[in-house]
């Protein structure tokens, strides 16, 4: 579904030079929830940004489906994001002047596409906010806002959804709701999702976890549980 080969990214020069990605190879499998984990500074956010076409890599290739995106121009990247990628950010996901429903259909409206009949209803049902659709983001709780963001990410039926610490600003209950929702999207809609997180509990919802450290993929885990992820992270701390 999405893959990167020999992806490199450095920031700064000289003494201040930081290698964010050091020849990373990853492959995201279709229809799975993939979690990218790692301590802060490990390059996980950079990896996601490069995979999603938000950031340009210094070297290597990124493929979304059968499109190589590192060579795309800004307008092509915009179209790619609009048509094939969904986003859920940690915070400030919604346009404050738009209602929940308008936020959900925003990518479609921007693209000038009419939503597939029934699809939006299904998404809204899945998100469970049908009674709050006319509310502005300011009138929704943090968890509700993130669920609207998930619905927005799904609305245009993207090939792949990138979620950057989607539960980072939520309490554990609201976080669990959002994670359940993402899991449900993968299970019932076959949605491909890539989630960056540093929370072992969040990672435990994934089908597969990639561990990043110092700009490299150092391990991966299939069928994770929170305990195993936590243990793996401790080990990583120890080895460093």
């Amino acid at each position, binding site marked *: 579904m999405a893959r990167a080969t020999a992806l490199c990214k450095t920031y700064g020069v000289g003494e201040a030079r930081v290698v964010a990605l050091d020849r990373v190879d990853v492959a995201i499998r279709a229809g799975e929830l993939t979690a990218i984990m790692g301590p802060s500074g490990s390059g996980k956010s950079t990896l996601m940004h490069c995979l999603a076409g938000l950031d340009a890599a210094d070297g290597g290739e990124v493929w979304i489906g059968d499109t190589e995106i590192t060579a795309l121009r800004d*307008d092509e990247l*915009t*179209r790619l*994001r*609009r048509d094939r990628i969904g986003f859920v950010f940690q915070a400030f996901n919604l346009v404050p002047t*738009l209602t929940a429903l308008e936020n959900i259909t925003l990518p479609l*409206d*921007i693209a000038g596409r009419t939503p597939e009949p029934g699809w939006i209803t299904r998404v809204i049902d899945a998100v469970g906010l049908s009674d709050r659709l006319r509310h502005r983001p300011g009138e929704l709780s943090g968890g509700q806002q993130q669920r609207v963001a998930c619905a927005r990410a799904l609305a*245009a039926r993207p090939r792949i959804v990138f979620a950057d610490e989607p539960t980072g600003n939520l309490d554990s209950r609201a976080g669990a709701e959002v994670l359940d929702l993402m899991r449900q999207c993968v299970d019932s809609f076959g949605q491909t999702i890539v989630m960056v997180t540093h929370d072992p509990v969040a990672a435990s919802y994934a089908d597969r976890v990639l561990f990043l450290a110092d700009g490299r993929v150092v391990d991966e885990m299939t069928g994770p549980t929170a305990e195993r992820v936590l243990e793996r992270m401790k080990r990583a701390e120890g080895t460093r």
Partner: protein
Amino acid sequence: MMLRLTLRSLAAHRLRLLLTALSVVLGVAFVAGTLIFTDTMDGQAADIAGRLGRGVAVEVRAKDPGGRTRGVSVPVPEAVLRDVRRVPGVRGPVGVVSGYAALVSRDGTEVAAQGAQTPGVLAQAGGNWIPGGDYPLKTGRAPHGPGEMLVDEATAGRGGYRTGDEATVRLKGASRTMRIVGLVGSGDLAGRTLALFDTPTAQRLLLRPGDFTAVRTASDGVSEEVLRGRVAAVLPGDLEAVTGTQVRNELRNDLAALSYVGGLLMAFALIAVFVGAFVIFNTFSMLVAQRTKELALLRAIGASRGQVSRAVVGEAFAVGVVGSTLGLVAGTGMAALLQVILDEGPTSGPAFSGLAVSGTAVAASYAVGTVATVAAAYVPARRAARIPPIAALRDDVASPQGASKRRVVTGTVLAGGGGLALLAGLAGSGLTAQALVGLGAMLVFLGVTVLSPVLSGPVIELLGRGLPRWCGTPGLLARRNAQRSPRRTAATAGALMVGLALVGTVNVLGASMKASVGSQIDASFADDYLVLPVRGNSVDADAVTRVASTPGIARTTPSYTGDVELDGTRVEYGAGNLPTLMASVAHRMVDGGLDTGTDGVLVEDDLASAHHWKVGTVLTARFPDGGRQEVRVAGIYPLVGFGNAMLPESLYKAHTPLPAVHALNLKATTADAATLTALRRSLAAYPDLGIYDRSAWKREKVQSLDQMTGQITLLLALSIVIAAIGVANTLALSVFERTREIGLLRAVGADRGQVRRMIRLEAILIALFGAVLGLLIGLGFGIALQHAMAGLGFDVLVVPAVPLALCAVLAGVIGVAAAVWPARRAGRMDVLTAIAHE
């Protein structure tokens, strides 16, 4: 410490503050330019007055000489000169003659005065040449007898003449061909032309044999005041003696009367400053809102309210000083430009003699710019002081948007009070009334501005109703963004509102005046043609004969004009054969009839009722030749454009030494192209006479109104430009505030074009909101003014839909222009940094 903070903050927002300062710069530039311009004019006037009145200790002249509002001026008889000669202490008294005389250049047109001329000072002057007087002989010799004259060097040059040439000089009612026997040095006469004769010739041609315009004398050592007293003692009752100082001051004031242009410009300058204050208010409000956390932190660590608000006011002060400085520089340039424009053309004789930048002008510029800026920033500064320290810790400090009920009440009271003041001012007259009109208009603007946050939501909803359908999501977002912060939108639109309201007023008024004038001409142009001097002041007697003998012209009705005092009130009158003259303007009498006999006059309705004159009332008339006579009101007529009174030709001629035809009303046997051509041919030698039929006359009259409307609109454009800066400023700050939001839009697939369109549409909506408010206010003002002026003959109300609609379109265009830079910035924003933006 707070000072250092202020300076740091200024340094951190250099560009933004420069943009803010720009809104001060333009207003101050206008203020400074106007002041420098008037100072310069005044300096030149003082210079000329000093030269022309040099050595005069006492002047003898008619009491209340002909000013614009003063009485009629009578001549000084020669006998008075003899009496003055015998007064002890006088030295070299002379009789001065002055009157209208225009040199006709080789191509047949009069040599016109150059530059802007002031009313009350003859622009094409004739006089008697006095040896050792104000005009030293440069070449040639003194004029002797009826066939010789001197002209000033500049005028001779422009007419194409040299010493020894024969030239035609046009006088009141007649022309003479004379030999130019010498040239006088003109010095700087502010563009006037000069022809000089020997004294008897000047008396005969310009005044009346045996009369002087004034008698002037120097002193052999006695003070001006003492000598004045001695001279006054020998004078007859209707003459007065004034000191040379007073003469020079009066001349200086008359010459500098162009400062009425300065007054007008100053009004527009102050409007611009007022609009600039809107922009500054808004910018500082936004800056304070953006810096809420920073200011709250200051409060939390112990800064007092006063310190916080002083920091903001300090910034405003700095912006004001910088803006005023730049404005002063720009204003100096503007004054120079204005001089060049008024001196029209490169052939300008009266050389541009340097600008006078007085201390007052500098001080006033700084005062206006700084006070306006600090006053505008006062409310935002108070708001800043009220930020609670806890705001430093909270994430979202919603700026208070409530209190809308109080807002509605305050706004309504302000606007209503302003409206009443305006109406009261329009009903009255004089300086107080004018001030009341200005104050009323300002209050209406403030009131509507206070109200407009409440209005902005629904109005923008309405204006932007179709946007989502036509422009998609950017349209929807633009509308919501424009509604997002009603106060900000209102203040931004308010600046535009002021300019457009005044443009609307001027256009309603202009269109109404045009229509009124048009319908008046339709109703009163009963003859076929009108012959009137385009330049100069009378129709030559020879030209009258030529017109009368033109084939196809059935009747020629000459009319005359003059000044008379009726029971002490100075009145401009028209004269002629009253039955035919009144028929030519399709008169209808209010009372009485046209049968005046030799001592009857007609009086205009308003004048009559103001003085309770009725048919049969006997008035004392005092004429400029010094004559007095009892006259009887024979009839009362409505305003028809012949001044405020009508005299029979005989009465005019009896009291006018140099009768001169003012205009000719012509009736044709057949008013066709052939007649018109014949008429043109008859007057070929008089290119300065205009020949009009009804439609040409209407065009002529309407054209000047169009010009006036256009010029005022142009002057108001300045305040609209300032308002556009305000729109740009608001959008730039909004874009900055919404960085993350824009990043999000880009992340979910909005392209740069869509983001730019969103900003542009928001700008258009804000601008249109301002335009709608402004044009509605303008409509109201215009209607009120037209009503107030209905009594002056402007009785037709026209709402010029097309120009007003164009104004609204223009507002939209201004919105687009203002959005160019903010939209580009928004479009250029890097998605990732925008998302990461705090």
